[in-house]
């Protein structure tokens, strides 16, 4: 499409953004035409959020250039981006509950009447104007705490417009909305672009993307891989682009999945916050010497399923470990029955950051006979046990007395993998076991998991890394909106299939 530079609202060229040990964005190119809704789709971890933070001035790119309205810019802070007319509506609203709608909107850019007084009248009239423009109505004097989710989101949008934004970034705006609210949001966005504003819409819900967008950019593994338009592509095609047409090939597998079921769960259902269950009737068996991969876009019930299996959250259904029913057992008893867990979030659920490593590896193991002296901690034995983990899993640390916060993320992760594996569990629940660690360490962790699998362990592997899922798993189950919608063979799986199930394009064909 030929266009003069005046038609381009945002242009990102060859953007590269690195974090220690991670290449978050590279060779990213994005051209957003003025007055359009431009969707950016991709899996979690594809680099969408990083890219938007670059555009919004929260990150500075190592390479590449950012142009807004044809002029190259270098934002140091979001304030720079705001003054250039860019506004961001965050996925998690940043509103003050105890203030009114009006106060929330003007917070931080209050119109002044002199003498430090706020000109509420001026604010009210300009906000009313904005509301008319986007065809919405809110009671400006209502407390935000009284508002529903959809209304809060509109407050966020008005807040951004009030600051003079004509380029809006919406980060997964529909994730929290019910269908009616989604329609309303899209109507609002349409009116905005009709008035000449530009909308950048981040999503992984393909239906919405196809229905609302003028242009679509697909990101995968940190880079932009395709630019297309809704007329030129269908859902399966988009799903395939998201996942990648060439799936990693399964590593030479010569495993013999056993016959004994080590982990069996039936009809696991976890109630969600708004009546909608986050996990629904999940039923699976994992056998000895088997790695069962759970694929799915993040937030489709993976965390809740693991929490239910571990007894960390209330759930319906039954869980058996090695034939023992642990459905009503405490978390500690479930570990004793043979479960082990590599947590999703190493800082939140895994580590005591200011405690030394040996105490971190002792966590959850202090009742083991060799690590205790009756009611006392056997510190020398715990230190020795920790050193064993550090040695075997290649944790880079001065020694076992170093506090956990002093380690890099990858080494913290290796420590947690070690803590879970060293107990020789019969069932390992591994959530993103290699997230954030370098390639060499990743291979080492994979080898450890494979070796333990070959020795008889059953593994439930939750991962967003398709290479990991396909490379390790003997079988893959897809979790979509809390339900297991497919069970697939990693040897024969195609990208279209996997992407289709993960995004809900394909529903419940296999059982």
């Amino acid at each position, binding site marked *: 499409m030929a266009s003069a530079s005046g038609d381009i609202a945002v242009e990102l060229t060859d953007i590269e953004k690195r974090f220690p040990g991670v290449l978050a964005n590279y060779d990213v190119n994005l051209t957003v035409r003025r007055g359009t809704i431009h969707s950016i789709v991709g899996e979690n971890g594809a680099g969408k959020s990083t890219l938007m933070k670059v555009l919004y001035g929260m990150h500075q790119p190592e390479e590449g250039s950012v142009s807004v309205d044809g002029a190259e810019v270098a934002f140091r802070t979001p304030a720079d981006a705001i003054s250039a007319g860019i506004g961001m509506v965050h996925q998690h609203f940043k509103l003050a509950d105890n203030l009114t709608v009006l106060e929330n909107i003007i917070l931080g850019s209050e119109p002044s009447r002199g003498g430090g007084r706020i000109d509420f009248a001026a604010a009210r009239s300009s906000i009313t104007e904005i509301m008319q423009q986007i065809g919405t109505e809110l009671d400006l004097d209502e407390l935000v705490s009284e508002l529903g989710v959809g209304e809060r989101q509109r407050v966020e949008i008005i807040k951004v417009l009030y600051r003079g934004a004509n380029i809006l970034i919406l980060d997964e705006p529909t994730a929290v909305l019910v269908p009616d609210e989604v329609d309303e949001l899209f109507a609002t966005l349409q009116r905005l672009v009709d008035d000449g504003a530009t909308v950048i819409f981040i999503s992984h819900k393909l239906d919405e993307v196809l229905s609302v967008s003028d242009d679509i950019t697909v990101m995968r593994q940190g880079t932009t891989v395709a630019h297309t338009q809704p007329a030129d592509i269908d859902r399966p095609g988009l799903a395939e682009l998201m996942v990648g047409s060439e799936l990693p090939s399964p590593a030479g597998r010569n495993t013999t999945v056993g016959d004994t079921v080590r982990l069996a769960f039936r009809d696991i259902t976890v109630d969600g916050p708004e009546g909608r269950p986050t996990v629904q009737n999940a039923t699976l068996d994992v056998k000895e010497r088997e790695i069962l991969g759970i694929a799915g876009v993040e937030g489709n019930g993976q965390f809740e399923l693991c929490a239910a299996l571990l007894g960390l959250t209330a759930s319906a259904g039954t869980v058996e470990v090695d034939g023992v029913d642990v459905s009503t057992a*405490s978390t500690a*008893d479930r570990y004793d029955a043979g479960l082990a867990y590599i947590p999703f979030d190493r800082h939140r*659920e895994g580590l005591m950051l200011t405690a030394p490593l040996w105490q971190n590896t002792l966590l959850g193991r202090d*009742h083991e006979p060799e690590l205790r002296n009756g009611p*006392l901690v056997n510190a020398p034995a715990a230190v020795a046990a920790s050193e064993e983990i550090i040695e075997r899993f290649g944790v*880079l640390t001065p020694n076992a007395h170093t506090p956990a916060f002093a380690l890099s993320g990858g080494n913290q992760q290796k420590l947690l993998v070690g803590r879970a594996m060293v107990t020789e569990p019969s069932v390992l629940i591994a959530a993103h076991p290699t997230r954030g660690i370098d390639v060499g360490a990743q291979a080492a962790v994979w080898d450890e998991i494979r070796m333990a699998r070959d020795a008889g362990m059953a593994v439930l592997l939750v991962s967003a890394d398709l290479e990991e899922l396909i490379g390790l798993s003997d079988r893959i189950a897809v979790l979509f909106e809390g339900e297991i919608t497919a069970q697939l063979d990693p040897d024969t799986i195609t990208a279209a299939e996997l992407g289709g199930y993960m995004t809900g394009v394909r529903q419940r064909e296999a059982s």
Partner: protein
Amino acid sequence: MTTTEPDISKNPLDKILTPSQSPQLQTAIVTVAASLLGVLIALGISAFILAVTGKNPVDAFTTIVETAGNTDKLVEMLDRATPLIFSATAVAIGFKMNLFNIGVEGQYLFAALISAQAGSSVNLPAPIHVLFILIVAVCAGAAWASIAAVLKAYKNIHEVISTIMLNFIGLAVIQWLFESFFREEIEGNLNVKTKLLPNSGRMPTIIDGRLSTVFFLALLVIVGYYVLVYRSRFGFRLRASGENPDAARTVGISARTMVMLSMIISGGVAGLVAMKSLLSEAYAYGPNATPIQLGFAGITVALLGRNHPVGILLAAMLFGFLDSASATLQLAGVPSSIVRVMQAIIVLCVVILNEAAIRRLNVRTAEQAQAQLAPEVNA
């Protein structure tokens, strides 16, 4: 890959730390240094306050130093520190898992009344009688604390709110129990108390009656606190639950159990706060005989002592010393309330300096660990 060069050279902690020290030793050194500095700064601020209020700070400090040279006053310091050790330890047990037990005040007064009444109602041989009173006191304190524990563990009601309210409820309950059932009428004596403990239920004083032997019980409790919190598996779980409740829960430590146990143990120790008064001084509970406010003082002593057994001991002694110096100050024409001001300023300075120093230390530890490992990473 670009890495920002860590600027290790500028950290002021380098003057007192060497790489050969373990992280734990470094933490200890930094804590002691920051605390000493905090006390010095607090003394400076106190001197300034004295000066602007028209008092001579030199006189005041001379008086305080003279007090420190007086053996009697030092014994008095230990005696005054005794209840503070109990109450600070009680508070610190809660602090170790981020539970803020503000209810020590109500817990110890309730325990004082119940144990005084129970102790004066039985006749037992001497050591057993004392032991019986102590056990009743511990149980009564624990029982009162268990209300807040249950509310927290089962109804998720914040312990700060519940313990504050239980303090008021406790005072009312104590007054009702005392006035309705336990007070002993003595004609013409306005200083009403419960029935006096018989001799078999008393703990002796030593050094001309200046030091209650309950002080040694306090030392025992400090040692017990150290073993429980820093050496036992329960203490490990307690600290883990305080440091990262989600991680503790994830590895199977029951938050509910830990809340219940720590609150009840805290209340049990709180039950001992008034034992010096009961067993060695007043031999009874009475609104005018039993000291109040020690529960709140315990919070400041625990803060000052950084919840560490040695710190608590030293902080309680410092507070005990300043308390014993206040009478002397009064005689020297300095208002004794300056002691309260000094205590507050000391706590503030020590806490602020410690937080700042530990933050610096953490940055330094992380940088040094990365620096130590850098060659391996590049290899």
